[in-house]
């Protein structure tokens, strides 16, 4: 195996397509099961950030997902975009994991892959905790950079400099490697996958598969070690609005002044 300067690992998660989640007409509840599964949109930005680092630094980019075998298409998408390899971390033992064991699993996988940088999305469009990237960093005792809008690789210093979005402004922070980076959604425009990569990803590529045992965390995952649990879920009823469309600005002004009288 040839050695590269950096190994970059990208976390990608499969989620129900937010635009396609419908309401079950019989029960009036959300029908997520029938929505097509897609890559969490912010993760495409994470892939782009990883590949943009590889454009300037000699690096190997590996995508990883923790999920059922059904999630393999998100890895194929990552391969098509330009990742060198991909890992499917799958095991029934993971069922019921909250962000604590989820980030432990991804932390161990990143360590096993020899990650210098882990890239992730800001948050997912399904459970949207945004807690997994800091969780990975915390489990491994690594540096972290969240809400990142730009990256400047500094291989000669073995550091990564990033611009973070902070309340009311920005900061530039340099972090020692290894570092976990969560990119701000919408800041890295994902490159299109070339046709030959798509064909390779769909027809010939097979991901590496790891179980909890392979990561030596068999007793540290799943429902039992998860501190939180979902106690219940209710569908939020949309707020009733009048939905009236008026013709002129004067009509609209009339309604606005109503608010104060």
């Amino acid at each position, binding site marked *: 195996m040839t050695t590269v300067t950096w190994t970059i690992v990208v976390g990608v998660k499969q989620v129900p397509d937010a635009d396609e989640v419908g309401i079950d007409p019989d029960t009036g509840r959300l029908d997520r099961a029938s929505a097509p599964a897609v890559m969490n949109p912010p993760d495409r930005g994470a892939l782009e950030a990883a590949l943009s680092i590889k454009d300037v630094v000699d690096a190997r980019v590996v995508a990883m997902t923790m999920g059922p075998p059904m999630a393999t298409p998100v890895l194929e998408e990552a391969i098509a975009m330009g990742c060198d390899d991909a890992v499917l971390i799958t095991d029934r033992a993971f069922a019921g994991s909250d*962000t604590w064991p989820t980030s432990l699993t991804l932390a161990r996988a990143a360590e096993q892959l020899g990650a210098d940088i882990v890239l992730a999305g800001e948050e997912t469009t399904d459970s*949207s905790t945004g807690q997994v990237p800091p969780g990975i960093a915390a489990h491994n005792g690594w540096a972290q950079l969240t809400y990142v809008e730009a990256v400047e690789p500094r291989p000669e210093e073995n550091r990564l400099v990033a611009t973070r979005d*902070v309340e*009311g402004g920005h900061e530039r922070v340099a972090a020692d490697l290894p570092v976990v980076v969560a990119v701000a959604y919408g*800041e890295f425009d994902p490159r299109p996958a070339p046709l030959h990569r798509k064909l390779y990803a769909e027809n010939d590529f097979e991901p590496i598969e790891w179980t909890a045992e392979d990561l030596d965390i068999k007793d540290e995952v799943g429902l039992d070690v998860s*501190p939180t649990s979902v106690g219940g879920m209710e569908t939020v009823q949309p707020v009733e609005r*009048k939905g*009236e469309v008026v013709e002129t*600005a004067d009509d609209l002004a009339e309604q606005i002044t109503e608010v104060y009288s």
Partner: protein
Amino acid sequence: MSEPNDAGIDVDEYEDVWVFVEEHAGEVMPVSWELLEEGKQLSEKLDQDLVALVIGEDLDDVAEAALERGANRVLVADDPVFEPYRADPYGAQFRAMVENRKPTIVLIGGTHTGRDFAGRVAVPTHAGLTADVTEIDVDDDGLLQARRPAFGGDILATILCEDHRPQMATIRPGVFEAGDRDPTVAFDADSITDVDVVVDESDTVSEVLEREIGDTADITEAERIVAVGAGVEGDLEPALELAESIDAKLAASRAAVDEGWVDGSRQVGQTGKTVRPELYVAVGISGAIQHLEGMNKSGTVIAINNDPNAPIFEHADYGIVGDFAAVCPDLAETLASDERTEVTP
């Protein structure tokens, strides 16, 4: 005698409600005072102390403000290593305080800062961490019931942390009301505790090279809001004119923030602020679910959009189909001449 549970934790050892008071260079984030007010309800129900936690440098004023806003006690970690904010020193310090003092509930503002470091406390202490909460309560057994939107706000999930402690949560800014400051509150030297600082600069793995803070507007308390979206294509003037005519604050969709037209502190939605003004005017905003989540508690919603099929019209009380650049000035002119729009003090 209480005993450890299956997770090896004796939950009765844990008491008090902690609220993290987030400050940067002496400036306190408004969400901190919202949490202190909400935390007061929880601590009274539990009959335990409400404790404010402040991390930073030169914190005397902030600590006193926390007492005057209802904290029974304040824990202060004061050291140059904490200014400006970095995840690793904050996380390590907060973790040590949790391990030494064992609070049962810890509330942290769901700002970029709060959501950045909270995991560095929850992971090593194996605490439950609920993200981006919009409703909280405690049940009769003292268990925190934290409710949070998921799936873009279509679902409200109740998250519990039954066997682990502390029960930590990040809370979305703007969902609770801050209380008033009471300068007559009596406190003494014992009310403020300087804790041991466990972090040394040599342990840190990050370095802030520069930090530039400009616009830190607080839109969460605004009574009237004019919000712009991608549809204004960088031309803020018409919307600002409209905002001025009705004394409204400017806000924005994430698309407008990402373009750099409006600062992130004015973003409304799932990853921004929650607002509930009596009047919300959406200008060139399509009405994506992540945006609606931050403004659907508004009184009257008005939409200005040139696409008659834009979803925002279904989520508005009154709308007009048209170009914002024409509608906004017309509207501003009519409204500016109407004395009813003047704000009564």
